[in-house]
């Protein structure tokens, strides 16, 4: 067991000593209370989340789970490099992430069985194996239900869009999709956020009051209809966002200090990460950033090396650095995942080789909150073809993510017709992540 500081700066092992010696006069109940407080503080620190969706399914073998000793038809072209965390190695084309490896935890040997994009995606973003008859809510929708944010910021923002849907929780927990990605140093024009047409806040307030007085046709039926209920809640929220300057400021990445913004580079993923950081700072609870193009059936190595990895490396490394610099890393749970891994065996359909869908073995990254960075949890076999031991399911990782946010994943919701549904049905919290 490693030692670490609790919130009040006393090392945990020291407690035992203190307890035994009793020089501080701590009683056993005192001690227990203190450790419990420490424990709960430690595990319920994150209040916001950033979710990076690597759409398409990134190759685990060429990023965070390299197998340099595997045969060449599996190993691929990339070599591992050392990181700033002892014993942790990642792909040579992720040099910036290697410098901040102490901030994130790599999960290897995550495994499921859904090899279609849509199903796999639904699985990883909900923590529940998709059912045809029921749509599970995405992690962000659950988060804003459990931890509503300030009303004058959209609680759940997708840059530019996300696979997460509100499912049976209802449309009021749907993400606010920007529909576009911001550009470096340019004002990000999210339409509707700025007061348009010379209207004043006062006039908008008057109009809103009038609307409320007149919008009575469905009065009394809103609770029974998801559509009506959702429209009401969006209306309230839209009004708050429009009348407060906070959202406008936060969306405008050009307002960021140049020194800070520079680190994020100019790629759309990088600038999106900067936006995520600003939104979290302004009070948004959950931001998803999607990074596309990971479906490398063909020319896997070329695509990764030239396009995908450099911007991903720069963006994510800057995000982790930036969150820490702003003092937000402790309160922000970060979750990075694709919908599945890719086949260990390299196909030869293209000159450069490709890898196909492979849900049985994949990687995920966790950071922020109580996650202990600089470690690898879990392990895959010698060809990264399956977990070496038990492995983890997306359900487990979702449960762990919720745990990091202080949300009990076994909590039950009720669907419209009263059916009880657990937030995550089959998951177990992976304790090593926090160890």
């Amino acid at each position: 067991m490693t030692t670490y500081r609790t919130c009040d700066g006393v090392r945990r092992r020291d407690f035992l000593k203190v307890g035994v010696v009793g020089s501080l006069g701590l009683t056993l109940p005192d001690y227990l209370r203190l450790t419990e407080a420490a424990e709960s503080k430690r595990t319920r620190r994150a209040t916001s989340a950033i979710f990076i969706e690597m759409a398409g399914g990134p190759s685990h073998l060429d990023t965070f789970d390299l197998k340099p000793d595997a045969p060449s038809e599996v190993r691929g072209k990339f070599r591992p490099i050392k990181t700033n965390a002892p014993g942790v190695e990642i792909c040579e084309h992720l040099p910036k992430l290697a410098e901040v490896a102490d901030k994130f935890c790599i999960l290897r040997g995550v495994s499921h069985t859904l090899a279609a994009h849509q199903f796999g995606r639904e699985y990883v973003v909900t923590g529940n194996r998709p059912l045809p008859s029921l749509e599970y809510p995405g992690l962000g929708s659950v988060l804003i239900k459990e931890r509503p944010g300030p009303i004058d910021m959209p609680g759940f923002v997708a840059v530019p869009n996300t696979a997460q849907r509100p499912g049976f929780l209802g449309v009021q927990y749907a993400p606010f999709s920007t529909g576009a990605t911001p550009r470096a140093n340019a004002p990000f024009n999210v339409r509707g956020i700025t007061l348009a047409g010379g209207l004043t806040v006062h006039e908008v307030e008057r109009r809103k009051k009038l609307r409320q007085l007149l919008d009575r046709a469905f009065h009394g039926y809103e609770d029974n209809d998801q559509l009506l209920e959702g429209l009401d809640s969006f209306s309230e929220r839209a009004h708050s966002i429009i009348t407060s300057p906070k959202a406008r400021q936060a969306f405008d990445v050009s307002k960021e200090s140049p020194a800070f913004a520079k680190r994020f580079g100019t790629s759309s993923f990088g600038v999106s990460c900067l936006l995520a950081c600003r939104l979290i700072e302004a009070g948004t609870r959950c931001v998803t950033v999607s990074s596309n193009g990971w479906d490398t059936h063909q020319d896997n190595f070329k695509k990764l090396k030239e396009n995908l990895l450099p911007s991903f490396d720069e963006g994510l490394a800057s995000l982790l650095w930036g969150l820490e610099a702003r003092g937000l890393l402790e309160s922000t749970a970060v979750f990075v995942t694709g919908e599945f891994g890719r086949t260990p065996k390299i196909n030869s359909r293209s000159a450069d080789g490709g890898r196909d869908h492979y849900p049985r073995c994949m990687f995920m990254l966790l950071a922020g909150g109580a996650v202990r960075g600089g470690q690898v949890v879990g392990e895959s076999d010698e060809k990264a073809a399956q977990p070496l031991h038990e492995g983890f399911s997306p359900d487990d990782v979702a449960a762990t993510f919720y745990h990091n946010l202080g949300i009990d994943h076994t909590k039950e919701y009720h669907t419209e017709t009263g059916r009880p549904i657990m937030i995550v049905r089959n998951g177990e919290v992976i304790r090593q992540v926090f160890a």
Partner: protein
Amino acid sequence: MTVNRALVRCRILTTASPYRVSPVARLLSRPGGGRVVAGMAAACLLLMAGSGVADESIWPPITERFASGATDEVPHFQKHVAPLFSRLGCNGRACHGSFQGRGGFRLTLFGYELDTDYDALRDKESPRIDLQNPAESLILVKPTDEDMHEGGKRYDVDGWEYHVLRKWIEAGAPHEKGKLLHLKSLVVEPAEIQFRQKDETVRLRAVAVWADGTREDVTPLCRFQSNDDQVATVTADGVVRSLETGDTHVVVFYDKAVVPIPVMRPVSRFVGADYPEVDTPTHIDKLVVARLKKLGIIPSQVTDDLTFLRRISLDLTGTLPSPEEIRSFLADRSPDKRAAKIEELMETPAYAAWWTTRLCDWTGNSGTQLVNVTPGQRAAQDWYDWIYRRVEQNVPYDEIVEGLVLGKSREEGESYREYCEAMTRIYGGDKKASFADRSTLPHYWARRNFRSPDDRVIGFAYSFLGIRIQCAQCHKHPFDQWSKDDFAQFRGFFQSVTFSARGSDRREYNRLLQSLDIDPKNKNGGQLRRELVKRLRQGQVVPFPEVFVNQPKAKRGKQGAKRRPGRNRQAKLLGAEVVDLSQYEDPRVALMDWLRRPDHPYFAKALVNRVWASYFGRGIVEPSDDLNLANPPSNGPLLDYLTREFVRRGYDLKWLHRTICNSATYQRDWRPNETNLHDEKHFSRALPRRLDAEQVFDAVLAATADTKHNHALKQTLSGRAIATPGPGRNRRRNPLDYSLTLFGRSTRESNCDCDRSSDPNLLQIVYLQNDSDVLGRIRNGGWVAEVTGRKAQPKRDNAKNKAAAIAQRRAANLQKRLTQLQKQLRVVRKKPGQRKQAIRLQRQVTQVRKALADAKKQLPKASSKAESELKWSLPRAIEDAYLRSLSRPPTPDEAAIATDFIHESKSPAEGIEGLLWALINTKEFIVNH
């Protein structure tokens, strides 16, 4: 067992007519009763099937026959062994059904490729069965977990499953490859379950009827699935348990059969004889109420005239009714005014435009996919125009589809040059020529996402069959009968059509270029295309891209003998026969003939279901493009009736619209009663739906436009969303496209109905509340000006704005100077002896005054004066605001609230503007109710 309380009916899958055999079925359902009455049941089943020999008996279930190992029976691979693998879950995706296999053993996903599976069992490298030592076979020692099995224990040593597999191996693992037995039907009893209370149970029994007449109780070999486990659950042994009220289906799978069994529990006590009298003026209503009666759901009342008018205008024409229309409809006292309105609306341009838009959704008209299909990117517009003409003329649906399915660029007998000449006329500005004149729509085949045979099979199946066949591209469809083989054999119909940018007649193509003095070698693709567009504008005949049918080339055989062209070319229709393609110059003709068969299981049904879904927010089969055996309609007789009649009436689209819209079912109120509060699939009330993207855009346009413009919007459709051909390439730049994308207009990417979305989201509401487009339209759309007499503010025009600002500054300076001069003048006048100076000052004042007057003339007209008064009376203005947005007059309370608001506003114009804003932002506006 509470089966005696359940309504028991017996139905044969292959025959449509239900047959009551409740006493027998009841006996059968008793534990152990199966054998006693086996003979009787067989007789009964035979009677119903109307074939076979009477003295044949039903084989008892395999669980009994193989309870102990003491039997001489040899299990059959297709009948017993393969289904057992499915039942035990061996061929699931997580296990050996995975494409990578599991533990070195791979079965086909969900079974059904028997020979492949058989080979996997007999694999030379690692056989799964051991004929020498049957007991050592892996399929016996692994699943019993005697030898470590990753998938855990699946059955017991000495269990019936064990005996079945062991007996089969001991008999030498017989299986005749390439020979599939034909399962005639799977008879499941009871054929329908009606529960009364929670936790009641019914045991299902499934009898397989094979083509050779053998019948076997295969219940233990079936897989069972509940479509809604809130209503009912089903165990692996087929015991159905009742949970909540409502209805669903339990689906039984065996071999190729997929049999859905309706299960229901009424939501109220109003069932059967206790059901109240409900008016059912049309056949649709009778069929809907028949279903509701079983469920204890009482439908809502027929809605009032105003709600009806708004709903029918939106649904039938995608358009809000205008204030004049509403007034005259209310004033109309004739009893059949609703039917008359429906007829009237079907004659409007908006009807044609709206249903063209929907047909473009279903068939996949997308500018993005049609890039470079025609010069100048007009293909999407062509597609729209072509369909519009036909919807307007009410061309039968099958003929419209024929134009797509048999689409090719050249008319019959037209040479490539003649084709190019004709197209040049259409594109070159001949006002009388239109693409709609062409007899087919070749662009359907030219889309980028519709060029490979596989994509074509998938897209075609979505569009015209309403089925999702893509599963079968790689494996057996998990919920339907389609196998990989079906998919592969169907593909043959889609292989002979080609799109070529340079046409099919290369020589003529080059000649045309030569005559235009263009050398293609000097130009890249883009340059050449631009050059051709230029020439086209000048009226010159340019070569056009072409969709054509390849003529099979005569191939030489191995011996050099010339083979007959197209020999051995075959393709198989889905669920129907193999077609010899060599009989067809264009194999798509066979495809079209097949669609046209009066008893086609999908073609008309898919369309009818989609049209229904457009009116009710959900299909009779939902999702509306997912007709599959395991996803039965919520009201089968209703879908069958509409389909049958639609075909009988020659695929008459207007008949379909008329029939649905005139039903009481369509005209019901949205307000629920106690029994139908949760009903979303039996059409007992209108479900509030968010307006479709195009409707939102057009509704804002119409609500803010002045009376004259509003009228024009209905007549010419100019600037309307329903008149645009669909998503194009310059999506972001166009305000119309921004709004349509935001509100979920169909992306037309996959031909799936899910390409369109009507979910609300925050950004949409932000758009309505605060987007400059919407606010600008409210202020300057015309109506506010019409009411207040205020001129619409000039559009943002930078040059003009600049000029105005200069004039303003100049005027301000002059005013200042004038005030100064006048002050000086007053001072000077008081002092005697300064007359000369006074005159000079006076002259200056006159000059400045004149300059100021000139400068003021250049200022934008001051509006404060005009705004202080309204051109219309306030009550009239308020009523009009209501009619044009919510399609109803305000209540006295609402009128009073609006009046107060306007009085408290800075000016009446601002008040009117605020009122219109508020109305557009009510739920009532954005919801079709």
